[in-house]
């Protein structure tokens, strides 16, 4: 029950989806399976929410370190959930879009979710700058190649590149830094990315096959019953 049934489910679903590409009558079944998958994905969101609540309630009741902030998480969670699941503050009726202009849900999205989410990532600009100063060193030939490529791209993707090398005549325009940046992206970068892509592609294909055939079982966890 704990291992056999999941292995059978994975095998059946995986096989159906592969065959649905080759056998048109099976296409509909494949579509339905993916539709089931989409619906289960929403339950996974609920699982995430439930887990978050459990972690923070435990932290709160056991008065663990920084437990006060768990109140913020829980209040924020329930308030957003009320505005979302029950469409509280939505100007339309039950069929109106959840993100309708003027709805509380969209207002919180615009004024809380957006500043928080985007600033979290904006911080990375500072850390990238710090890394450039501390870690980006031409220690050997490989690192120097990386550095030169990065320099050309950094220059070439701004108007500064044109400003510095704009004097080079059109017949030698490939030597202008913006064009050199384009060439790097279209040739060596493409080659390197393609080599990586082929490697990953083969990896995904073999892993998919191992999962479907039940050779790869790590997703079932450690309990062997």
């Amino acid at each position, binding site marked *: 029950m704990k291992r056999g049934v999941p292995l059978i489910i994975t095998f059946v679903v995986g096989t159906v989806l592969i065959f649905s*590409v080759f056998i048109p009558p099976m*296409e509909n079944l*494949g*579509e339905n399976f*993916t*539709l089931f*998958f*989409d*619906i289960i*994905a*929403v339950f996974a*969101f609920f699982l995430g929410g439930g887990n978050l609540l459990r972690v923070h309630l435990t932290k709160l009741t056991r008065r663990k370190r920084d437990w006060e902030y768990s109140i913020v998480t829980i209040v924020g969670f329930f308030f957003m959930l009320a505005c979302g699941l029950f469409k509280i503050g939505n100007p*339309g009726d039950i*069929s*109106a*879009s*959840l*993100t309708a*202009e003027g709805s509380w849900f*969209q207002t919180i*999205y*615009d004024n809380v*979710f*957006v*500043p928080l*989410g*985007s600033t*979290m*990532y904006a911080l990375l*600009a*500072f850390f*990238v*700058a*710090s890394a*450039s*100063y*501390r*870690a*980006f*060193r*031409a*220690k050997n030939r490989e690192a120097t190649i990386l*550095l030169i490529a*990065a*320099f050309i791209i*950094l*220059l070439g*993707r*701004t*108007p*500064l590149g044109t400003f510095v090398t704009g004097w080079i005549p059109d017949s030698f325009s490939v030597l202008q830094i*913006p064009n050199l940046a*384009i060439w790097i*992206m*279209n040739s060596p*970068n*493409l080659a390197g*990315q*393609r080599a990586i*892509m082929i490697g990953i592609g083969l990896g995904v294909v073999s892993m998919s096959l191992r999962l479907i055939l039940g050779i790869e079982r790590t997703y079932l966890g450690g309990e062997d019953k």
Partner: protein
Amino acid sequence: MMNAFTPPLALALVDIGRIISLTLIAAGLLWLFIRAIKLKEVERRVIFLFIFISVAAPILFPTVFKEKATPVVKAVFDKIESLPPGSKVLLSYDFDPAMAPEVQPMADAFSRHCLVKGHKIIYMCLFATGQGQFTRTMENVIRPEFPEKIDGVDYVNIGYKAGNEGVLNVIISDFKKMFPTDVNAVPYDSIEVFKGIRSCKDLDLIISIGGGRPGIKEWVLFVGDPGDVPIATGVAAVVAPQLYPYYPKQLLGLLGGVKGAAEYESELVAHYSRFKDSPTPALLMMGPQTLAHIVIMAFIIIGNVLFIQGRRKEGKR
């Protein structure tokens, strides 16, 4: 914002501001360089301050550069331009607020271009946040600039569905099965934009705007290649290099980061005079972008001076 009617005093202030901020940054970098020669490092907060100033100064005292579309960007522009009016274009908002500063300008520019050309747009998203971001396009582009366009007739928003590539695997053969209604619960069959569309294969162009997963890669794998549908993209700079292996066979063109967006905006303004006064956020962002790139390159050089000096000192010992 500066324009032809900006008073001379304000223009002078902007120039003075530019000079002061550039001098400040140059002097600071020189100070860092001298410290590096003396083998003295600086605290990371000083680096943070530099980056803040180099981004903030050009925002306060803006400089707009001219941009010329590169072939990868031009390919997308030309494709939309060459489609006959009434063509069906799908714009997928596959991004969140974290990517929005880079890709929202692209999304708005694509919308402007498609609407002015008279194409019918289907908006959808593989990121739940994409639906909220579409509201921005609605508020900033469609309603103020194209008030004559009607929801359901000229464009439709079918919104978000959970399931990532699972969604694409269904709409490649049956749109209605995945999207029985639009976001306002209007049934699929009564939406005029969908007339003659059964699946993604019936679309003239698909543009995915994003930078994460699910995103353009899934569109290529699950729709573009199996359905032979033309696909283009506008992506955050971080993922743009990874997409070049698809170009031009599997991906007809791509806009990478804010530079790609700026190139598209400039192309749009050059072709359509009605957009001369429309916001061009990406073009404006190229000022801070340029200065920040210079500062980061200076950091790399200074860091390497530190490294070389350190090695030399070790050698002497």
